[in-house]
């Protein structure tokens, strides 16, 4: 009998499993080591360890780093590229910029395909979509044969102005498919009919190199799951915060390249909603880095472009996540100017923080937390022991440079880590016109809850939420998403010349296309939701702003008003008298997947928690080390309230509750900290 929903988030080090029993509402979590040579194996292992019978599972959802890893390690199939005559180097010239503006020795990585495998064909479309030259059939066939002889498994077809007219690309694709029937072929027009050749070509090429990689991986995984008795769909999380069905993923392979990062942000959003917060930011701090994300009015902030490696953008909407080098293992150091710094270098798992005693001697955030008593010397239910003396020794060395005590230095290290995280949160909020005081902060990852209260206090964020399972929070995110496609059409016209009927027609065309995609995936009509977006800008401006518009658009003025208001909100100015340029029309197609209903717990008012022990922990506002109650997370039923200072320990994280901060455990067992209490 089918009763489980499972989500698996495969990371570089661990594969996290989140199993939800639909009948009992119980949750089971599992962490197993990843198996990078064949990630499917870890999933198989995990399911066995978790004792989940796959025939009892009715939904399997998956976040994966297979795509990202293939790009970073360049472990890619033989891939060719066919370009318009004169333009095979667009992908290498890029926009010509470097990431580091001053370091002439820091290079942009080379394109995913070498120049020798980028071939050209005579053809040309102009800016208006008119065929200047049709595909030279003879040359095209020659190119196809050459690529066949060279054993290419994937081919990207990238022609100039194909965003206006894909006919030449399509013809080239047909010829390639005739000559090399088993190759994976994609064209820039079918993937992304958007202006700007490098960005479109880059998306198409990334898709081509990942097509076979992701396709083969999912075939393997689907086969294994089937073999274990699973009969449902395999859903794969993509960067846009939705899932695709495994059979669709191969066509849009580049969409899943940042699958894993999106999961954390989605889980953050869901947890915030569950706790009743429409606006929230996510602080996902692990061992080496910290990811921050933002949701506003219940919608995650999106980016229109992102990249795995600098210079090669993937132009699909993606959840905006800012990653900084601030993790438990981030190293504190003194630079040549005598300034105390924290990160971005990390001690990683090996040699690790000084307290691991695996050869690391540099002081890290973990060491500072240990010295201040915030971390226990015994972690993971006794499976790991930390050496406090080693931490003290490492920090003392640093402290001597500043005439500080070891304790002051440890505290300073944490203040810097917190300040760096605040900067990242500021970038995603204040810079974009959001006031942190209107937000809640969701803290997760192994180290997030250690720092969250301080970060929130600094930014005047009133509430901090620590979800029940911070260590596998991202995996839970995989379980909570809908099928999502993003369709786009470049549509350039000025607002004073625009015809509403025509805009409606294009939107309707996109909607038909979107509906077909979802129907093909078996999404029933009642679960389909289509959202309209317009990309707009003041005429003469270079960046556009994407705004939601209703269906139908009643008047153009109404749509424009939405734009003026959003421009005012983000940039503190707008100009309703100026002509607006319509730049693109977009449809977000959502196929709702039924979500698990998490079990609500009975709440007894004013439940008193019992501390398992008392420890000396440093709190600045309490005047230094004070006797601090240490609670076990599992001993905190819903309804529990108490006031800091306190420490809350659980298998996968430690939560620090500073002095005067009030803790409430809600009916879903989330910890809510009231910072201003």
């Amino acid at each position, binding site marked *: 009998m089918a009763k489980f929903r499972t989500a698996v988030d495969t990371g570089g080090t661990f594969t996290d499993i989140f199993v939800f029993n639909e009948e009992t509402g119980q949750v089971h979590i599992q962490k197993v080591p990843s198996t990078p040579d064949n990630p499917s194996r870890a999933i198989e292992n995990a399911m066995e360890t978790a004792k989940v019978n796959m025939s009892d599972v009715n939904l399997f959802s998956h976040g994966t780093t297979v795509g990202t890893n293939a790009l970073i390690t360049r472990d890619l199939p033989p891939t060719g590229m066919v370009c318009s*005559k*004169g*333009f*095979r*180097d667009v992908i*290498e*010239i*890029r*926009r*010509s*910029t*470097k990431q*580091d*503006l*001053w*370091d*002439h*020795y*820091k*290079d*942009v990585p080379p394109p995913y395909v070498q*120049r*020798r495998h980028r071939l050209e064909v005579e053809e040309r479309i*102009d*800016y208006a979509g008119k065929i*200047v030259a049709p595909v030279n059939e003879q040359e095209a066939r020659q190119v196809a044969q050459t690529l066949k*002889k*060279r054993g290419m498994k994937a081919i990207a077809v990238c022609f*100039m*102005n194909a965003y206006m007219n894909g006919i030449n690309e399509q013809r080239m694709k047909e010829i390639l498919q005739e000559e090399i029937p088993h190759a994976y072929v994609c064209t820039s027009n079918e993937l992304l009919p958007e*202006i*700007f*050749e*490098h*960005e479109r070509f880059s998306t198409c090429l990334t898709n081509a190199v990942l097509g076979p990689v992701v396709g083969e991986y999912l075939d393997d995984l689907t086969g294994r799951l089937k073999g274990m008795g699973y009969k449902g769909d395999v859903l794969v999380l993509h960067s846009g915060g939705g899932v695709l069905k495994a059979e669709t993923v191969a066509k849009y392979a580049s969409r899943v390249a940042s699958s894993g990062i999106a999961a954390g942000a989605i889980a953050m959003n869901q947890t915030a909603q569950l706790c009743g917060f429409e606006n929230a930011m996510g602080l996902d701090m692990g061992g080496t880095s910290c990811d921050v994300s933002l949701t506003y009015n219940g919608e995650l902030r999106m980016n229109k472009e992102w990249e795995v490696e600098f210079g090669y953008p993937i132009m699909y909407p993606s959840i905006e996540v800012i990653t900084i080098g601030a993790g438990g293992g981030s190293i504190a150091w003194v630079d*040549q*100017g*005598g*300034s*105390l*710094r924290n990160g971005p270098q990390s001690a990683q798992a090996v040699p690790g923080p000084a307290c691991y005693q695996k050869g690391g001697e540099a002081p890290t955030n973990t060491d500072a937390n240990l010295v201040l008593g915030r971390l226990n010397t015994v972690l993971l239910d006794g499976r790991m022991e930390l050496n406090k003396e080693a931490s003290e020794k490492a920090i003392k060395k640093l402290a001597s*440079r*500043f005439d500080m005590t070891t304790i002051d230095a440890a505290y*300073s290290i944490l203040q*810097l880590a917190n*300040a*760096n995280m605040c*900067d990242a949160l*500021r*970038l995603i909020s*204040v*810079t974009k016109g959001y006031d942190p005081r209107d937000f809640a902060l969701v803290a997760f990852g192994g180290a997030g809850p250690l720092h969250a209260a301080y970060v929130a206090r600094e930014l005047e964020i009133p509430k901090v939420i620590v979800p029940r399972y911070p260590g596998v929070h991202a995996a839970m995110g995989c379980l909570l998403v809908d099928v999502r496609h993003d369709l786009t059409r470049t549509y350039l016209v000025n607002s004073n010349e625009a015809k509403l009927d025509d805009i409606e027609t294009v939107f309707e065309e996109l909607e038909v296309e979107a509906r077909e995609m979802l129907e093909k995936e078996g999404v029933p009509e009642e679960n389909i939701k289509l959202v309209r977006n317009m990309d707009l800008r003041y005429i*003469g*401006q*270079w*960046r556009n702003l994407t705004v939601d518009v209703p269906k139908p658009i009643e008047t153009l003025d109404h749509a424009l008003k939405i734009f003026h208001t959003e421009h005012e909100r*983000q*940039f*503190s*100015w707008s100009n309703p008298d100026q002509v607006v340029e319509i730049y693109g029309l977009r449809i977000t197609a959502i196929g709702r997947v039924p979500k698990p209903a998490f079990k609500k717990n009975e709440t007894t008012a004013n439940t008193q928690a019992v501390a398992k022990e008392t420890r000396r922990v440093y709190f600045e506002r309490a005047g230094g080390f004070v006797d601090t109650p240490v609670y076990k997370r599992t001993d905190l039923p819903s309804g529990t309230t108490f006031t800091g200072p306190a420490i809350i320990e659980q298998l996968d994280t430690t939560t620090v509750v500073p002095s005067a901060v009030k803790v409430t455990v809600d009916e879903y067992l989330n910890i809510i900290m009231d910072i201003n209490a």
Partner: protein
Amino acid sequence: MTQIESKLDPVTFEVLKNAFGNLVDQMSEQILRTCYSFVIYCRDFSSALCDVNGDTIMQGSQDIAVHVGTLHLTAKAIIDTFKDDIHEGDVFIFNDPYVGGTHFCDVRIVRPVFWKGEIVAFTLTNGHWADVGGTVPGSFDISAKDHFGEGLRITPTRIWSKGRYLGDVANCLVANMRGAEDRLGDLRAQAEATMVGQREFLRLVEKYGKDTVMSAARECQDYVERITRSRIAELDDGTWNAVDFIDQDPGQPESLIPIRVKMTIKGDKVFYDLEGSHGYIGCFLNSAYPATLSALVAGTKAFFPDIPLNAGFFKAFDIKVPENSVVNAPWPVAVTGFCSGVYEKVQAAVIDLWSNRMPERAMGCAFNLEYLLIGGWDRRPGFDSFFMWYDWMAGGHGGRAHKDGCNATAAVFGLGLSIQPCEGQERLSPVLTSEHAIMIDSAGPGKHRGGCGVVKGGTVLACDQSVMSYCCDRARSIPSGIWGGLPSIPQGLWKNKGKEDEAYLGAIFSGVPVQQGDTFIRPSAGGGGLGDPLARNTNKVLEDVIDEYVSVKRAKKDYGVVINVIDQEMLVYEVDLAATEKQRAHIRENRIRWMREDPEQVRDKLLAGEIDDLDVIRRHGVIMDWSTREVLPETTRQFREMMEKRTVAFWD
């Protein structure tokens, strides 16, 4: 170990230092999202936070190199002009290159930040506007001898007074520019960005208190100065010289225009002296003092990439530039093309000097920044409007100590300056791009070759009253190699190449009429090579040949590597090791003699078809007028003199 003196605790200092950086980056983000000039959009802009004296506390992390070292001069120009007459709510506009700007297109907006009635800081943004008036679209008039025809000179001018927008003044300024509405948009975008900076600075003051923030601002500069000086102190003392050249002074007999940089390291300071540089010349490639200062600082910064940029960095340098020279042109000498002229050369000379001080960060000469402009009336069906096709290219950087130079990368002038997509250009202008590709054999050969340059061409579609102008250089002063490496290729534009009326227009020209059907093509050079090309690993040459970065022919001539093509389609090539050994011995035996051969004899061989243009340059060091193929004797003498020092001296 460095002694740390500070009134602030290390955490407060580090937090405020990062907050200042965050603040200027927020200003930049605002500009990027709301600007109207595509030049700004492609990242030709910068933002800064300055202290009450105008000294920079922090500059944007992604700012363009060319503005470095000029922003504090801008703030000081405003302070000097208005003195006590600066009030809360005032905003100033400025673009005067003679007292703290770069060129007219770089328009700066400065906002004094007040706290309880007194100035506590200045926030400042600088953006390259697409047009600031003058005789030609885009305001790049190569023929200008003085600034009056170049564009509007905006001396320090109040544009908001105590919070009131002075629309009359703003309109008077932009009425002299093409695309007045867009210019007001840029003005607005930049002014709002300075507002963002103000908001964030005042937030810090409220939170940490004025005194703390002000001391952090001061200590940020001291901190940078301290790091810079400690790095310099680690180097040996001494004095070294470098020279680079502008192609010519158009009105004068042919000869390269020398720009000389003498560098002295003494203790923890660096002294730059540009004495011996040529007098100012009769075209707009000159530079005024601020831009020269910027070139020196930016060139040096490439060797200290991790040091943050603020006034503290400049304090470690002492700079002397001769009066009335090409590197210190007085008012009203034209300087708009400084970016392609003096700036590139000073920067290249500085990079050369430091390459010899820090060989592990060495780099050969890079391609020259270039701007091609075509402007007129768009007569495509459905269009009846003024258009401006304003294009710049990526090119090759110089070879490096242990690796090749970067292919097709933004000019050293500004590594964040992105090129424009051809699809965007084709939509906006009646110009169809025919190719945009890496150019074979454009890289200067070396043990580590230069990066490859790019070739871009196009066809003019329906238009009228249209003209083409080109702001470039290095058609003669070709990007040179270092430590035995060879030069790359000359820059310069061909009109209607291969047609009956083909014409070589060179690397600087303006106002050349174009009409429907005309074609044009020009390369950006590759970078100069580093080290002896005969010492290059033969497999690397082979890989370059397979990827068509280098031709089979030049593999043999430049590198002495003989490659047999077995099956081009299947990429089967092989190095003929015996023939290679012989070829390398042959080159080794003759190359010094070739380099000193009579230029006229070289020309005879060229005309007889025995050698080609690249042989003329790389083998013989001869510079010609590339249209007539006449030898330029004085230019050749100067070029060879430089090659003897930079290249021949390193050959065994």
